[in-house]
């Protein structure tokens, strides 16, 4: 076991910095998703803002779907929920 020799580390640092940039962008990025509402659909549905980490979490149980180019919540975020299964 061990760390790579110093002469091998230039590619590592490039990839490592790219990973950090991706992580920082992901940490601060937010997404607009259409709120799940009951009743009639409107042209201007209520939107809510979620972080990318929330979007990752939603991806684990299809909590958000892409409907005609819009991200749409499939559940009411204001209500408490337990662990959910992914329908795929």
């Amino acid at each position: 076991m061990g760390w790579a020799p110093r002469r091998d580390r230039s590619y590592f640092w490039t990839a490592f910095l790219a990973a950090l940039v991706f992580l920082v962008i992901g940490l601060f990025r937010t997404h607009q998703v259409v709120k799940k509402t009951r009743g009639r659909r409107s042209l201007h549905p209520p939107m809510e803002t979620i972080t990318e980490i929330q979007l990752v979490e939603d991806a684990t149980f299809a909590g958000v779907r892409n409907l005609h180019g819009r991200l749409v919540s499939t559940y009411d975020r204001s209500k408490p929920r337990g662990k959910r299964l992914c329908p795929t």
Partner: protein
Amino acid sequence: MTETVTGFSKRFFVQLGSLLALHSNWGPEVLKGFCNPVLSCHSCPLSWFACPIGVFIHFSGYHVFPFFALGTVLLLGTLFGRLFCGWVCPFGFLQDLLYKIPSKKIEIPHWTTNIKYLVLLLGVFLLPYYLGEMTPFSFCRICPAAALQVTAPGLIQGWAHPEGAVFWAKAALLLFVLMFAVLHSRFFCKVICPIGALLAPLNMLSLWVVKPATSHCVICRKCCQTCPTDVKPTERILKGIPPSRTPDCVLCHECQTVCPVPDKPGKKKNPIEKRKRPGKAPSHEGAKGPPLAT
């Protein structure tokens, strides 16, 4: 690193510990926002982390670039390469156990190891991007880990039903993979696994490497015989390259453990080789293939 403890390697205990710890009901729900680069279906209620493949498929369907998930996988991959495949992945652990079943073992052509890149490109990125995240042509729909962790318990409990082509394709792939895991070590990791395809290039630059156990290789090829992914560590040790600098190495460190001539201070020699006189010509008996030119 992988010395045996009562017949089992330390890696076995780490794999077992990871399986039990990361697949238990007391895991906090908030961790599902983070990807663990191992093949473990996040649809399993016991799973703590998100599966990067499932997340990439959904993000491809959303037409959103997965900065956070890709950043996590890239960060862990650049630091540790495929160490998670060898030490943490529950599906890899299952394959390691299945390969211990006594049976005829087979070789597979080396070109088949490139199939996993096609699986990653098509099943994880392109098809979900064009057909949507719920497409039956995504990798998730046929994932053998999902079949084992979610579909099989669902069938037993009665909430999953054996119907549809997707179900049978998933079941067939699971059986195929389990059967080949008995015949060929880490078949799925080498040929199909899309997480392996993601992490494989990072093995070439990762900070964590398997250092050669010796600077005086006697070409006994014990490392080649022990290697679960058959990546021929001897060839790289002779060139002075870390044995793990190859896409298919899962950094199990078995090649270090079996080396009969480790030159690390304080490390004991393999008891079988202790009686060898220094300077004795290496024996190629039992080696796979012809000896390497030095």
